[in-house]
């Protein structure tokens, strides 16, 4: 798991991951790259991350992937990420195509639902919590 201040250098991360697993004999490598769309007049998105819980979440996925003979990797941006640059890349490596295709889908969906990351629109230099696009994590409402 890798966290970076500001936009990710996607080619460099993609190439490094490719090299890291070059001799691992995986047949399928599926990255997912998330790029900031220009919409609603935003100049950037901005992210807060709570790293200790993110690491717990990610490590549980590493273990889950390992049971399937697969590997997951991810990198995310902290702070401001301008439109048309990337805030997120994750990837699955697997010997088998089906495992890889199913795992990247489950991983990205669970990431969206349960990774402790908060998103803000940046408009005129001001950060506005993207509440309408955010999802309560599993188990929310415990203290209500």
């Amino acid at each position, binding site marked *: 798991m890798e966290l970076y201040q500001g936009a990710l250098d996607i080619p460099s991360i993609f190439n490094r991951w490719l090299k890291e697993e070059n001799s691992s004999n995986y047949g399928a490598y599926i990255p997912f790259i*998330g790029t900031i769309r220009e919409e609603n007049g935003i100049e950037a998105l901005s992210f807060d991350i709570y790293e200790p819980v993110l690491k717990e979440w990610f490590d549980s996925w590493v273990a889950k992937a390992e049971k399937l003979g697969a590997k997951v990797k991810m990198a995310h941006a902290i702070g401001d990420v301008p439109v048309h640059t990337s805030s997120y890349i994750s990837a699955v490596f697997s010997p088998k195509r089906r495992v890889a295709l199913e795992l990247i889908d489950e991983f990205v969906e669970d990431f969206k639902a349960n990774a402790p990351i908060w998103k803000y629109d940046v408009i005129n230099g001001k950060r506005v919590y993207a509440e309408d696009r955010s999802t309560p994590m599993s188990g929310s409402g415990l203290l209500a």
Partner: protein
Amino acid sequence: MIKVEFLGPIGEESLELKAHTLSDVATQLQEIETIAPWLSKCAVAVNDQMTTDLSMRLKSGDRVSILPPVCGG
């Protein structure tokens, strides 16, 4: 004392509370005007482990984190 911290957009300072269980924490947070509206949509971690057990015993020095709705990616 238990430390309660509010993550992401909640934007409140951490608190120190007396509490034996998460249930005690809930009771006290429900009385704070700026915090109460968040509680129905927030998840909870104790010492960075997510939990859904309201009866969980707490000991002095434990950290309770309040996690509002997320949107990574």
